[in-house]
């Protein structure tokens, strides 16, 4: 694609980067067929190709963007399905982040929207504040009908039940001989919603010979703020993490483990976030190189032998977009679940987002609902006993549309290797697996004809 930035604009390294990305797009349009918002609307401006054109025009013009441009760019889920599909590998993730930062700096949103976004940016990254906000939200339920629709739909997303567990900085000793020493990103939203995930992760890692450090000073990865265009706030969170894990490195560090894939994507990209910040580029790149999704790390360690007491339940594995489209981690969770004895079902249209997408389901409830329902239909079609995934956002989003228990992959692995039954399965009657579950697969069933 040809661009028309002035030399003066191109002196800004952020514009220079955007320009280089824009020039790689040649409008093949493969992205359109896998972009959820385009597939649902058939609106070119709701496709990656269309948005790239809008970004080009917005950045070339400079200053305040058009409200329509902001609307179409806001509607992007950043699921990055387009990046998987793109034949020429346009670096869309960094382009849309650049566009969002430009909008944040140059566009004055209506008051209600400003308030909502500020509230999310200030509250979600802090688990205790988020927990308190949810409690307050629940208490004021009788007043919800009086609120504007935007606020009502946000409050509707407060889960009916949460299991918070905010971890203090500490070190969890390895069971047996120490094989690895790792730092765990305890997370923000996840700790306020579901402490079982960290508990299962820590048990699993310890059981596999890992010393697990919750580093003092580490916290939100910055992802939520970054994707709302609040780049400096994101950098501030990331800087704290890099410094906190940097201190842990003094005692040896084999990995920074992340069990919320949206966060993992951001931590793995810290090198880009700090590429132009003297003094931070190097440590950021070092931390990014250590970042691993928990499933990646466990696969490398090798899953210890599962106990025999967990039946081979049928598990539908839902790929979080951040894991499949950015981190390219899709085989490891499946392989681990199989190794743990479960029957794993792939979900049709797995490249499609479930509508969670960070704060997307709070800010764009209608599209998020359409995508959530679509995903739930596909998951249900696989007839699973349990749904497993690797991101708290997806777990929460799916819980609104699915009537099957949803757990994090690590909770099942933990259970199969001696940990407790995942709390989400308590009180749920699961079908007894057929004796030869594997006979369901066609290849095995049809061996005779070959």
């Amino acid at each position: 694609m040809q661009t028309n930035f002035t030399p003066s604009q191109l002196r800004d390294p952020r514009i220079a980067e955007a320009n280089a990305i824009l020039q790689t797009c040649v409008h093949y349009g493969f992205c359109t067929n896998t972009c959820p918002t385009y597939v649902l609307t058939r609106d070119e401006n709701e496709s990656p190709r269309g948005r790239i054109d809008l970004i080009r025009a917005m950045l070339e013009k400079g200053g305040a963007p058009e409200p329509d441009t902001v609307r179409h760019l806001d509607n992007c889920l950043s699921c990055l399905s387009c990046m998987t599909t793109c034949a020429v590998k346009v670096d869309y993730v960094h382009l849309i982040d650049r566009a969002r930062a430009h909008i944040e700096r140059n566009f004055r949103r209506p008051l209600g929207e400003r308030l909502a976004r500020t509230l999310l940016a200030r509250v979600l990254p802090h688990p205790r504040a988020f927990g308190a906000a949810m409690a307050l939200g629940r208490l004021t339920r009788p007043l919800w009908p009086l609120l504007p629709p935007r606020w009502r739909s946000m409050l509707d997303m407060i889960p009916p039940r949460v299991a918070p567990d905010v971890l203090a900085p500490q070190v969890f000793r390895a069971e047996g001989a120490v094989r690895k020493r790792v730092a765990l990103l305890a997370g923000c939203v996840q700790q306020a919603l579901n402490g079982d995930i960290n508990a299962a992760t820590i048990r699993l890692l310890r059981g596999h010979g890992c010393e697990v450090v919750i580093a003092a000073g580490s916290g939100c990865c910055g992802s939520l703020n970054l994707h709302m265009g609040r780049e400096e706030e994101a950098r501030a969170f990331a800087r704290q993490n890099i410094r906190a894990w940097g201190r842990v490195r003094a005692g040896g560090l084999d990995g920074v483990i992340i069990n919320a894939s949206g966060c993992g994507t951001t931590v793995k990209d810290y090198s880009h976030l700090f590429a132009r910040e003297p003094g931070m580029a190097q440590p950021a790149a070092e931390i990014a190189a250590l970042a691993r999704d928990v499933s990646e790390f466990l696969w490398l360690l090798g899953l210890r032998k599962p106990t025999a007491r967990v039946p081979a339940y049928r598990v539908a594995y839902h790929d979080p977009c951040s894991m499949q489209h950015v981190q390219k981690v899709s085989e490891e969770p499946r392989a681990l679940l199989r190794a743990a004895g479960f029957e794993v079902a792939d979900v049709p249209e797995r490249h499609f987002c479930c509508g969670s997408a960070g704060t997307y389901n709070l800010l764009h409830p209608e599209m998020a609902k359409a995508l959530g329902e679509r995903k739930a239909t596909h998951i249900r079609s696989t007839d699973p006993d349990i749904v497993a995934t690797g991101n708290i956002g997806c777990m929460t989003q799916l819980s609104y549309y699915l009537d099957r228990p949803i757990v994090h992959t690590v909770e099942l692995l933990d259970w199969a290797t001696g940990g407790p039954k995942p709390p989400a399965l308590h009180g749920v009657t699961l079908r007894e697996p057929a004796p030869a579950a594997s006979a369901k697969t066609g290849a095995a069933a049809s061996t005779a004809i070959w």
Partner: protein
Amino acid sequence: MVTVFETFFSEIATAIGADAVNRSEETLSRYGENTMPGGDRRPAGVVYPASTSDVQKVVRSANAHGVPLYPISTGSNIGLGSRSASSAGQVVLDLGYRMNHILELDERLGFAVVEPGVSYQAMYDELVRRGNKLMLDVTSGPPQGGMLGNALDKGAGYTPYFDHFGFSCGMEVVLGNGEVMRTGDGSLNHERLVNWHTSKYSFGPILDGLFTQSNFGIVTRMGVWLLPRPPAVQSFHFVFPEDDDLEEIIELARPMKMSNFVPSLFRVANDLYLCGSEGESPEYRLSNGRKSISDAGRRALQQKHGLGAWTLSGAFYGPSAAAIEPQIARVRDHFMKSGKASYIAHEVAARIPPLKVAINAFSGIPSLGELGLLKWRPGGGNIWFLPGTPMDGKIANEFQRLCRKIYEDHGLDYTVMNVCGARFARGLHVITFNREDPDERARADTCYRRMSEEVAKRGVFVGRAPLDYHDMHFAQTMPGFQQACAAIKKALDPKGVIAPGRYGIH
């Protein structure tokens, strides 16, 4: 004054819904885009029917107002036309948006019935969801490409069910006059049709072929046969070092296919076809795209990826890898006897991305890897030249030398894969060029035309063609063929509303 188009679109909006018509500026601009040298073709509008009945309404309205329609399935026909109509001002009938359902899937008899918008990925997902008992044949192109559109354009894959039109069975077609016709056993005037998608050889003439590479009707439903999924797929790969080794490769491959000892087709890909998917040409920017890549540059790429001037790939199917081992051993002995080949085993090939593409294709798994070829040169230009050669080594090598020379005369990079059957190999020639560079664009155009003329002089025609060259190729056909096409067009689409100009039929 209300134009014919305004009346037409208004009528369509009333008949099938206002949201079935899209005339936004962005839509018109993007649906006109393609990758060919001749430029974009902006349509007059885009219509999204949801059913065969909707298609009938649109066709009847088009007849009433003399509006030309251009049906597409998923619009992923990159290098051959994308979503672009035959000429600007036609109305794109996008069947992929709403007519994208798998209507039937019979696992006992091994067939599916699909609407035009069903992609390879969607079918694969559905088969996996049902337990992976059946395997579809895929192209190595975009997973979101449409099965029905590909079959109608005579597309192909690589497994024993490679011939997508050949393994289709039973169509529903809206003819140019708006009438609906069922082909094959579906022609029986009865509500319950038992053999529509299981038997091609029913009463009367086989009309299905009329709707391939033509514009006589709009196919809204088609049966597709599916292979029982084999428990094991084991590929084999042989690397040959020299360009002229193609002669020997073809001679070695032919008996393996004539006897059907090897059940898959052979992919005989040259160095750039395989390495080109891994990044931009390392020499493109040195000559500003004016020169072909050097022999030294090609050798460096071959070494980098552990490949040669040619790589032959094929696959066996069986109950287990161990059971297939004797067949692999025999094919290995056969190809190694030349003394030139080196062997790459399945497990090793699975770690070489360009060969992993082949393994996926042999396994009926849609994958994206080969699309990387499209970035070999910047600027998004891409056309496919698709002639064929008999499975005769001397002739195949003569064509190799001829086309390689023509590419080089035009400063372009010879990129080809011969997909070999028993008697014939389709030569998938990729012309990648910078569409934003007028000189390079013109060279790509001349290169295509020159190759078309030269192979035609030697008695060879193309099997599929990019939109830019439909008229040129149609002019290469004999008068009797042209007259027959014109007569059929007049009979089935008397007002000429369906894709006028497609495959040269006006």
